[in-house]
Structures are given as structure tokens and as C-alpha cells.
């Protein structure tokens, strides 16, 4: 067992968990934050994306112990009470259907907009599509996801 100390969505948490526990299991099973999903076993689909110390990571391939000491933001903690511009953009543009990939899409979208802004680069349609390489959606054909991220990029 390993003691894992994290700040998750602004709250300090401490748990003794098996050494092999993944960050996504820690979030879903220990903290019952079930908005973060598992869609594959091979780090391809991105349904599990959360922010660790301000960067998007796949929580299905991060050990909880690895993250210890860090600060995690999940979809539940992205905005307090109101909606984040990325969340609102997904609703405005019908950027989701079944909703399963959506938390990962939104967390990846927020991360990519922030990175491009910080680097002073334009987040073009082409760039959004390439940045989404690690997020799979089976419902939307990506059309409205790209539109959603374009809208939010203008508002963030």
C-alpha cells in the first residue's frame, strides 16, 4: 500500500491505496468522482483525461502514487457552479451525443487552448484536429467537437 496525498478540485485528500492503483481508479473508486471515464486499455481514447499540475494527462496510464503531491482537476472541478466556456461551447454546438467521451474532450480542449495561448500560436481547425489525436469519439464525427473548441478558444 502507498499513501497518496493529492489536491483534487481544490480539496486536499489522503488515502492508503494499493501500489498498482491507477489515478483514474483513485478518482472514480476512492473519491467517487465518476465523471472521468475509462474507454480503452491502451491510452488511446482519452475518456480519462484530467489535469495534473495544470497539464492534461491520461489518468488511465498514471499511477495514483505517481501523482502524489500533485494538484488534480477533473471535469467536476473545472468550474464552480457556473459553466466553463468550454463546457458551454459543447452545449451550444451540440459537441456531444452519448456524453461518454465528453469529459475527456473538454479537459483536452481546455488544455490545448491554454497551451496555444501561452505559446502565442493560432489554434486553427487543422491544429485542433491534430491535437485531438488522443481523444476518440464514436458519436459526433468530430464536426461539432471541433466547432465547440473553436468557439471556446475565442472566449477563454
Amino acid at each position, binding site marked *: 500500500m502507498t499513501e497518496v496525498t493529492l489536491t483534487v478540485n481544490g480539496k486536499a485528500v489522503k488515502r492508503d491505496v*494499493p501500489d*498498482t492503483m491507477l489515478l483514474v481508479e483513485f478518482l*472514480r473508486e476512492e473519491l*467517487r*468522482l*465518476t*465523471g*472521468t*471515464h*475509462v*474507454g*480503452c*486499455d*491502451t491510452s*488511446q*481514447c482519452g*475518456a480519462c483525461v484530467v489535469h495534473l499540475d495544470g497539464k492534461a494527462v491520461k489518468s488511465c496510464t498514471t499511477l495514483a502514487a505517481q501523482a502524489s503531491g500533485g494538484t488534480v482537476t*477533473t*471535469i*467536476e472541478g*473545472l*468550474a464552480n457552479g457556473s*459553466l466553463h466556456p468550454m*463546457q458551454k461551447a*459543447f*452545449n*451550444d454546438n*451540440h459537441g*456531444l*451525443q*452519448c*456524453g*461518454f*467521451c*465528453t*469529459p475527456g474532450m*473538454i479537459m483536452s480542449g481546455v488544455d490545448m487552448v491554454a497551451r496555444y495561448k501561452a505559446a502565442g500560436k493560432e489554434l486553427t*481547425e*487543422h491544429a*485542433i*484536429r*491534430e491535437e*485531438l*489525436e488522443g*481523444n*476518440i*469519439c*464514436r*458519436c*459526433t*464525427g*468530430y*464536426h*461539432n*467537437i*471541433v466547432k465547440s473548441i473553436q468557439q471556446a478558444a475565442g472566449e477563454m
Partner: protein
Amino acid sequence: MSENGIGKSVKRREDKRFITGKGKYTDDVRMENQAYAAFVRSPHAHAKVTGIDGAAALAEEGVIAVLTGPELVGDGIGNIITGWAITSKDGTPMKVGAWSALATDTVRYVGDAVAVVIAETRQGARNAAELVEVSYDELPAVARGDRALQPGAPMLHDCAPDNMIFDWEIGDEAATDAALASAATVVELELENNRLAPNPMEPRSAVAIYDEAEEHYTLYTTSQNPHVARLVLSAFYQVAPEHKLRVIAPDVGGGFGSKIYIYPEEIVCLWASMKTGRSVKWTSDRNEAFMTDAHGRDHVTKAKMGFDAEGHITGFKVDTIANLGAYCSLFATATPTYLYATLLSGQYNMPAIYGNVKAAYTNTVPVDAYRGAGRPEATYLVERMMTTAARQMGMDETELRRRNFIQSFPHQTPVIMCYDAGDFGGNLDKGMAAADVAGFPARKAEAASRGKLRGLGYSCYIEACGIAPSKAVGSLGAGVGLWESAEVRVNPVGTIEILTGSHSHGQGHETTFAQIVAEKFDLPIESISIVHGDTDKVQFGMGTYGSRSGAVGMSAIVKAMDKVEAKVKKIAAHQLEAAEDDIVIEGGQVKVAGTDKALGWHEIGLAAYTAHNLPDGMEPGLKETAFYDPANFTFPAGTYICEVEVDPETGVTEIVQFTAADDFGTIINPMIVEGQVHGGVAQGIGQALLEQVVYDEDGQLLTGSYMDYCMPRADDVPFYTIEHNKTVCPGNPLGMKGCGEAGAIGTPPAVINAITDAIGTNELSMPATPLKVWQAIQKTRAPMAAE
């Protein structure tokens, strides 16, 4: 009328919980006394099971039970059924091999479940499953449908010595042969429709809860049709009587057909819950999903089409081998027959059609309906045939299509279907205008200047949705009726709950179903809620698949609303001392037309429940139910035009423009309908360019993860151009046709026709990977002179 009524792109009301991480999917459910199941699965494609030793697994800390097939059968759990009986052309019934939820003596595909371990933790169950020792005697295996039907192929089931499930036919063979014999031109084509894995992003999951005191079961499950699951689990698998079994399909993360079926895992979890006295959860991982979720497509087809000297179709003859995998899944047998061969007429006048379909057992995962189900296979065949024929006859392919388009309706095809409405020429016009076909030569020349090959491909698809009527499908072998039910509850305060047997797993029913209620009663959409997915709440329903929720599910709601409207008018007429015919419902009021006499909508609700002042003899309350059974299928149709650029040096295809011009009849919410088309088109592009389930010769699955099975990513697809044409479906009250599958049906031939146009060959198979396209290009080039 209502600002959120029919035809408005109302933003989805269900989105808030999904975008904030508050959706409730099956794997999010956790019970107090929950244990976890892990399945022991066959690593062999075909083998005798000679022994199972669970002792080492049972000795592990936290392991509760190791359960096997013989115990399951001993407890009276029934074999898995198939729901559509097909009769072979010689009059014999189809051959259905026994399928136990846990194998009793033989495994027939990689992933076939042999045993289950129940343990305190998910990881503990998985680790212990590795310790279950199963002894196998390997048997020879066969993975391809055509090979399985060859003499001497390994046999899967004793009841089908030649692996033939059925040898079925449709149409008039003699008339078709005669038409082909006298045709001016006969075009021949051999095609494979590649095997696909549906891949909803949420893996399947089940939580089974047994209440010993009540002898009652609850099952949370990833289902598109929870009532059908309850019926089948009860009536056929004998898990529990129907009134002692509640099935809940909460938020479901996509289905595309693969969550229609009742799989071994759900049966085993329910049974294991009773055996262990624990709630039992199982959630598939992606690798397990590739090994166990029903696959789609997998046809091998040879076809001939005859034309007269003017290019009119005279006859169409089709021979198809459908690979149905190791067992007959729930609707597997209907897919390559009544959902495939009945659409072989496409959008065209065809005087004679003959189709022969042979279905084969193979050592692969069972194949069943996947988005489109039979109709993509028919469309791919017909539309590749039309393009190939035009090239062979030296005709413009749009002109060849127009010359053969069905123009008058109703139109009886030679293969059962009677098309009720359509405007095929109009769809083609809209598609060509939106795709700027006129500007294509200039774009092609510009691409050539960059060394790229540009091509344009067409697909004029027609499909059949809302499978019905029940009496007709019953006569064709269906084991169920295909109606839908609805209940409209007006509460005493005037708010409305709609209980529907349809199930939403991404389609947005909580929005669109409320829109038709807002329209009908001219009420704010906020006062309407939609209830679905729970057999304890909704009386019965057939669920969502085959693009039926609009045409069938919403029609049931309309029927129930009509009954509510009639009662509301009776109450209002009584209280306002007016004639029923003079009562109108608008703006939240129930009024006497042309006067200032009115009651608030909520006052009618209250009046119905206080029952202080109702017409003599009227029952209190304001709640009505309807079952709606359609009179016919509906027939969505459209034109898809794909424009590609191929890099001849690498074989890489880029889709530069994709235009969909669809006729879905009445559209409730254009935003949601367009979203359905986007998703379907992407799945069609996936089939055409990227996706294929691959088994090796011995039946080993080679595509067991997203590392090996190529899902469409955002950079594989363009923004799509969507156009709508509209001919109203005369068969249902709203005039709707269905939009859920069109994209997956219409897209693959448009993509392949575009690539073959670009590279100048008719020979190309799906998925058209860069390697295949590059090889096809090399074949078109004249051989180099010998050095």
C-alpha cells in the same frame, strides 16, 4: 406555436449532466455489498474443454466463487436465443447451434466465456481469473465465411454439419436469369463488406442485485432496449420471472446496435448474484469488447446487373455469403436477409431481382446488427455497381442513376419493400449543387498541378427504418412485435411526464421528445420531462435501434397526446359551457375560440385530479397510454458526394469535401439530426478507409485494441456539408423517416467510388488503406519495359 417546438434547433437539455461529469452510467453504480466478476475466456478459436480447476483461484484472499457452465446449466439457465427464424429455400428451418452463457464442453471463438470468478475487488477478480486452470483439446478452426462453407472445413455445431445456418433466397431467379441473358450489357462485381467492431465509447457493463427476501433481481445494464432484455432474460434464460426482474439502462454511452443484445455476461452476473448473495458488477475493458461485442457486416458477394441498350436496369442477381460467427446472436439472422436483400432495388426501377444468401458459422465473435445492419451492405453493393456500370458503358454516372430512378410512389419493388415517398432526383440535385460538382474539373486540374489525384464519388442510398408492421415482420420470422409504447402523464399542476419505451443513448430524446409535446400543447419545454430506460417506470417498450425512435417512438407519444387532448377539451367544454369543437389549446391556456373565456392549462390538470367538476361519467385523472404499430417501414433516402485527394506516391487518401443531401421527411430538431448524420458519416468513412476486424487463419483475433483497430480520429475527417430535402412520410402522424443510420449506410460507396475515380480503377476493397490504394495505383500503371 411553441418556440421550442417542431423544427427548432433546441439545445440539448440532457447536456448539463454530461458536460459537468454528472452523467450516471452503469459502471458509475456502486452497491453497498458489491462484488466484482471477471470472466475466464478461451484463448483458442475452437477447442474441447476437458477440465476446469478453480482451486487455486478460490484459495486467493477475497475470492468468493468460481462458477462454470455445467453449474449454470444445472441451475436451469437457458441457452442464448436468436430472435428471427429464417427458412432456407428448400423449406428447412435454420440450424441454430446451442449457445450457453458459460461454455459447457466446447469453445468456439477466442473470448468464449468458460468460467467466472467473483471476488471482493475488481483487480482481485481479474488476478484470480488468471489462476483458473482450464484444460483444452484444440480443434481446427475456420474464420472466413466462404471457407467455412467449403467441403472439409472444421465443423462448429453438430446441427449444421456443413456450417450452413441457412441458404435463403428472395426474388425471382428465372426472371432474373432471363433478364441477364437478354441484356445488352452485363456488369459483374465481386465485393467484400469488411467486418467491423461497433465500438461505442462506453464499454458494456452490468450490475446485478439479488434481493433474497423478495426473490427479486435488479439489473443495471448498458442496453438499448431494457424491456426486451427483461423479457428475454425472463422468458428464455429463466433467470427470474418478469415481475421479479427490474432492468435499468441508465445513461448509456453509445450503442450502434451492439447494446441491443443480451450477452452472456449479463445473464451470468444475475445468476452469480443469486448464487453468492452479493451484488455483482462486471465492466468490460476494450480488449474484452473486441472479443465479445457483436461485430458487424462481413459479407462476401458476387453480383451481376443487366442493362438494356439505353442503360435501363433489366435484372440484378446477387450471391452473398454472410459470416455470422460462432453462434446466432439475437437479430443476426434478420440482418443479412430481411434487412439486406430487401433493399437490393436501391433507388432504381429494377424489373427482376434475385438474391441468395448463405449464412455461415465460423470461429469468430457472433455478428449482428451494427449501425445500418444489412442496409450498408446493400447500398455498398448497389452503388458500387451503378458507378462501375456507368464506367463500363461509358455513361455519366449521374445520368445513369437518373435514368433508372424510381419516379412515382408508392413503388413496389420485386423484393418485398413498397417505397411510400421520395424525391431521388431532387436529392441528387441538392447534393450536386452543394458539392459544386460543376467546379470539380477545375479543382481536379489544380490538384494535379500539385501532383495529387482528385476524385468524386457518388452514393444514392435508400434504407428502411422503423421495421414494421408487427404482423408483417411476424410472418417473416420475427420473434417480437415492433411497435412502441408511450404514456403521457399530465400532473395536477399541469407539468407533463412522457414515459417512453424508446431508449436514448446519445440521440437526445430528452430534448426532441419534449419538443413534440411543447408543440402539441403549446407549453414551455421546461414543464415537460422524459422518462425512459427503467422497466419499473415504463410499462413496456421495444427500445431504440433501426432509426425507429422518431417514426415509431414519437408516433406513440403523438397517439397518447391525442387522447389527452380529447379529454382536456371535454373538461374545458364542460367547465366553460362551450362545444368541444370550439376549444383550442394555445399559449398555456385552454380557450373557447373567438371569446375571452379560458382556463389555464394547469387548471385543467387540477380539475382532472380534484374531480369536483367533471362531465358526468368521466374518470378522474389525466394520463393516457398508446401503443403504436406502424403501417409500413419508412424510407429515408439521399445522395452523398465525396471528394478525395490521393497522393500517388504514398497512397494516402484525404477526404477534402463530403456532402450529404438527405430526405428524412419531417425533422424535429435540425441540430440533432445533423449531428446524427455527422456521426454516421464518420463511421462510414471509418469503414471505407480505416476499420477492419482481422482474424488470422486459425481464428486468432489480431485487432484486439485501439493499437490495432483503427478508429476514425478528428484529423481523418473533414467538416461535412449537410443538406435536407423533404418528402413527408405518409405512414406516420409526424411524417418522419428516421436519420440515425443514414450516414453509415450511404457513405462507404461514396468514398470508394471517389478513390477509384481518382486513381482510375474499379478494383479496390475496404478499408482502402494507403497500402491498398498504392498497390491499386501500381496496377493501373503500364508495366515498365524490361531493363
